[in-house]
């Protein structure tokens, strides 16, 4: 294998690729984990405020978003089955649906946040700072955690779009699809985080 100092010694190892993706997922779990630690401490310290504040959030929108993400997890999982069987068109369709569902999630989020902003509820706002400490922390955590999550949705969407393009030009195919699997893993991670965010912010009272 000729190596020039510009060519890296890369060789195809799907197991390594997938292991690398899982390790990255572990880091994301710990990243959000830090925020869950903060949430659990402040829920413990301010139970009443957290109790009441979550009624400010729209449960139905949260539920719809949860369902959207769960379906999108299924569609991306199905896209892996599709590529394994060499069904290029189906793979692309499923990926497109996944990305579309992600977009829907973001649109919902945009309106959700928009309403809060209209009522003067955002980190650092004077209205928020008039409320109790528990309220300040609840909303601070709400915006920070759902915001960071939304950022990961955007990253995931971009990743899936790139993967869709590669399926189109057959760089990803039934003989080489670890990139699609890894993109799927990332997407499922985004769903996993939301599965915890939803009850903690919208449901528990």
């Amino acid at each position, binding site marked *: 294998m000729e190596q020039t100092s510009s060519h890296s010694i890369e060789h195809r190892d799907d197991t390594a690729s997938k292991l690398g993706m899982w390790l990255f997922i572990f880091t994301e779990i710990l990243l959000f984990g830090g925020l869950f630690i903060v949430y659990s401490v402040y829920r413990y310290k301010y139970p009443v405020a957290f109790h009441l504040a979550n009624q400010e959030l729209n449960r139905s929108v949260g539920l719809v978003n949860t369902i959207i993400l769960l*379906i999108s997890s299924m569609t991306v*999982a199905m896209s892996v089955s599709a590529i394994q069987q060499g069904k290029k068109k189906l793979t692309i369709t499923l990926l497109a649906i996944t990305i579309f569902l992600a977009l829907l999630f973001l649109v919902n989020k945009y309106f959700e946040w928009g309403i809060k902003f209209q009522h003067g509820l955002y980190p650092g706002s004077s209205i928020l700072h008039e409320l109790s400490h528990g309220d300040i922390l609840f909303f601070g955590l709400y915006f920070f955690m759902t915001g960071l999550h939304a950022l990961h949705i955007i990253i995931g969407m971009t990743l899936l779009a790139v993967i869709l393009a590669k399926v189109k030009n057959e760089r990803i195919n039934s003989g080489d699809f670890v990139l699609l699997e890894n993109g799927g893993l990332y997407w499922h991670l985004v769903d*996993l985080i939301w*599965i915890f965010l939803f*009850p903690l912010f919208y449901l528990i009272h």
Partner: protein
Amino acid sequence: MSEEKQHIVSYKNNALVLVALLCLTMLTVAITSVELGPWNVTAAMLIASLKVGIILTYFMHLKFEHVILRMMVIMVVLVFTALIVITFFDYLYR
């Protein structure tokens, strides 16, 4: 080298997993509508953990991966859980 993974999850099985997840979601909504005091959080978290477990096992294919990967996932979950528990040694007893 490509993994000799002939294991293909059928669309039907993927759909069944989704149905299970949706049911558990509805269950979470139902349980948290009832006033159970501190058990609300526990119940919701247990169901959420179950959903996460299902996604890890089926959608993320852990069931069919190398056992070492499963051990790593368990270890990460344990470490994180320990971090929260130990942090609460402080907050619970202040």
